[in-house]
């Protein structure tokens, strides 16, 4: 089993290039390269690591890359995986950003980006719809959702504060709920 730093880096670099569109896309790629080809972890381990990565802070795709890298070769493996998954998008963005800053004042490009901004709004609204279906489904979550939304629309609240307060609220209400049930 070849699991040198460079080998791990190479595999995650290949995954990084193919990763288009956020967190969940990475799982089938990991299954193909890490589980089936390289056999660094088992399929069951992948499922567990994915469940864990979703419940920890950070970007999901990055978390799962780091944890599978760590499973394969400790700290060195985690470092190789993180670099492998970050470097391809990093350079893509730098190159694109440079190109765009050069052409963004051309009239046609401006018009195209005007339209793209509308696309972004559409994408955000569709994401909200998906998130809503998955997460806002009980009385508590309805109340929490609307209180937070109204606060955010009226006051300049920091998202950090919102996350901390709702975590505390959820923790306390969970304790109370279990007390009542007992």
């Amino acid at each position, binding site marked *: 089993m070849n699991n040198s730093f460079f080998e791990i880096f190479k595999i995650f670099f290949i995954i990084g290039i193919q*990763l288009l569109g*956020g*967190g969940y896309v990475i799982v089938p790629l990991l299954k193909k390269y890490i589980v089936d080809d390289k056999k660094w972890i088992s399929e069951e381990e992948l499922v567990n*690591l994915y469940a*864990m990565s979703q*419940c*920890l*802070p*950070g*970007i*999901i*795709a*990055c*978390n799962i890359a*780091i*944890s599978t890298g*760590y499973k394969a070769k400790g700290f060195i493996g985690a470092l190789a995986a993180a670099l492998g998954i*970050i470097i391809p*998008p*990093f350079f893509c*963005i*730098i190159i*694109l950003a440079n190109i*765009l800053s050069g052409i*963004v004042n051309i009239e*046609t490009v401006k*018009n*195209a980006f*005007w*339209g*793209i901004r*509308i*696309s*972004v*709004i*559409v*994408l*955000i609204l569709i*994401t*909200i719809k*998906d*998130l*809503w279906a998955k997460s806002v489904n009980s009385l*508590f*979550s309805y109340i*929490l*959702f*609307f209180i*937070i*939304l109204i606060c*955010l*629309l009226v006051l300049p609240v920091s*998202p*950090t504060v919102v*996350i901390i307060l*709702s*975590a505390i609220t*959820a923790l306390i209400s*969970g304790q109370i709920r*279990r007390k009542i049930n007992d």
Partner: protein
Amino acid sequence: MIKLYFLLFTEFLKIGVFALGGGYATLPFLYYLQGQYNWFTLEELTNMIAVSNITPGPIGINMATYTGFTTAGILGSLIATFAIVLIPSIIVMFMTKLYSKFQSCKSVNDIFWGLRPAACALLASIGLKLLFQNIITEEEWAFPIHFNYQALILFLILIIPFSFFKKNPLLTILLGAIGGIIIKSI
């Protein structure tokens, strides 16, 4: 300049820890940064979201790299990208070592049960604000309503098919660009 790099580092360190829930989770934080520091304009932010959607790599990483770059060049993008993954990666390694089999405890479940609606509300507030600014009144929160009809038409054209089909960011952005060029030239 050193102060800007330091601020960039601490802000993205914070985003790394608190942005939960995949893909667009960093968005409310970046929107907030925009209001606080004016490192980039709102227009630039939406452009960055679009570019992050169509380039390979996790959207959260792409957004960090791009905003870092817009704010303070290549060094800025390195700092932002490094800062956003730093704390989560330490936690992830620690947890991977600790649990051979991950079992979520009751408290963690409770917290996530509350965080998901919160994350949804955060994104919804951004969605509504952008909707107002670009389509409904040209300001963040203002009445009376006076529609930007060009934007409204493109918005409807784009959103109707995607209420029936699966989300496809690449296609949505491509159609938006073509639609923008056509509508603005009429």
